[in-house]
Every structure is written in C-alpha cells, then in structure tokens.
C-alpha cells in the first residue's frame, strides 16, 4: 500500500485538450513551474527542468523522465532521481496528471507518489523550490489530521 503520496483534484474551466497542452509542453511548463524546461512529451523521453539562471552555479537542474503521454487523458513523469541514473520506482517520485472531461471543462487529478520509497530528502529538496510560503502554525492535534490528508493512501 502506498502511503507516501499527495493527491489533489481541481476543476478547470478549459477543455482536456487545452489542459493537456498546459501540463505537458515546455512553453507552458515554464509558466507554472520551472524557469526553463527541455522536454518532449513522449513516453520514455528524458529532459530537464531548471530553476534559476543556468549560466550560474546556483541554478538547480533537475532531470525528468516521461512515463505516460496519452493526450488528452493522462501525462506522467518521474523526477527527483540522481543524475546519471535511470528513473525507477525506487529512486524517484512519480507525478501523474489525469484529465477527466467534466461538462465544458476538465477535472484535473494530480498525484505525486514515491515519497516513502524515495525517503525524506525528497521533501527537503522540494522545499527549496516552493514559491509559496505558508505559515504552518497549526496546533496539535490538527497537525496530525493534516498529515493524514497529505499522506493518505
């Protein structure tokens, strides 16, 4: 059973075709996630996303491997594995976007799994990239409820 996962659902008032383009093509990826993206949305393709100015040593360059590319239904990739290694279920996180038509729009289902296999350092690494700083001043026992939601099976 997989406990180390994040699951989200969001309704988008745009067709699955449009949403698929936004989540899978480098020109759109750049708008919602990294500063730069070099990636072909085809299964097995490897690419990179980068954060920061790539001409400086401060830049973070992160490898990705596309696992599924089934427009306009499903797009998934693995990331957060060591440079020079091939992405496997044990050394990486799997991000999956599932697109379900919903009226004139799309229900976008997101999951990120593999934290348990990959371990804690992935969470720390991820933290460096977050743009969105939230003060998590929850108090106990609400904290536990929150963890349960984040890592629920």
């Amino acid at each position, binding site marked *: 059973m997989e*406990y*180390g996962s*994040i699951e*989200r659902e*969001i*309704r*988008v*008032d*745009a*067709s699955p075709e*449009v*949403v698929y*383009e*936004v*989540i899978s093509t480098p020109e*759109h990826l750049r*708008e*919602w*996630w990294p500063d730069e993206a070099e990636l072909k949305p085809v299964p097995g393709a490897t690419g990179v996303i980068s954060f920061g100015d790539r001409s400086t040593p401060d830049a973070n360059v992160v490898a990705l491997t596309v696992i599924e590319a089934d427009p306009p239904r499903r797009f998934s990739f693995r990331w957060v594995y060591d440079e020079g290694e091939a992405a496997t279920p044990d050394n990486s996180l799997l991000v999956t976007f599932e697109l379900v038509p919903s009226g004139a729009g*799309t229900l*976008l289902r*997101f999951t*990120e799994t593999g*934290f*348990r296999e990959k*371990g*804690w*350092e992935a*969470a*720390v690494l*991820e*933290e460096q*990239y*977050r*743009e*969105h700083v*939230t003060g*998590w001043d*929850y108090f*106990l*026992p609400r*904290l*536990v*409820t*929150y*963890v*349960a939601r*984040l*890592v629920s*099976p």
Partner: protein
Amino acid sequence: MSVAVDDELWSAVGDPTRRRMLDLLLTGGGGTATTLSEHLPVTRQAVAKHLGVLHRVGLVHVMPAGRERRYEVDEAQLARAVAQLASVGAAWDARLQRIKRIAEAIQRGQEG
C-alpha cells in the same frame, strides 16, 4: 539530523495506526501501551511495537509510570515532520492553481 533518520521519520508517520496513536496521545495528553490498545483494533503488543517506532524517530518520549511506560508526543519533532510534508503539498497547490489560470486563459482566448 541525518537523511537516514529522516527516512524513518517519514515511514513512522506514513502508517495509519501510528497516526491514530499520535492523535490519541495528543488528545489524551499521553498514554501507555495499555490505554492506547483500548482505543485501537490491535493488540497491546502491536501497540508497544508501534510506540517503539515512534520513539526511535523522536516523535514520542517516554517516562516510567508504575509497571508501565508512559508516552507523550514530542511536539517539536511532530511540528517539524508536518512542516516538511505540508510544504510539498502547498507547493503543488500553488502550481495547480497556475495550471488552472493558464488553461482557462487559453480557453477564453480560443472562444473569444
């Protein structure tokens, strides 16, 4: 704290029985393997084993209480675990909101 220990911390809170135990310890202000097992569908022995896992990663501390041992949640360690997990979820929440905004703008452009 080393990465190896952090891996264990992740696994420790990943288990639903252990999360339920943390809940019980928090609401009850602590407890023993016996008091916890009264509220859980597992044996006292299983509870003791789970408490051992939580103790090893610093999520609970222990003190003698008569013939038993009493456990309390280490709030600093729990807050640390939650903050790191929460940051990953929060980062994706922000990205998904951006995906929504971009896709909807494109859709409006196509219709307009």
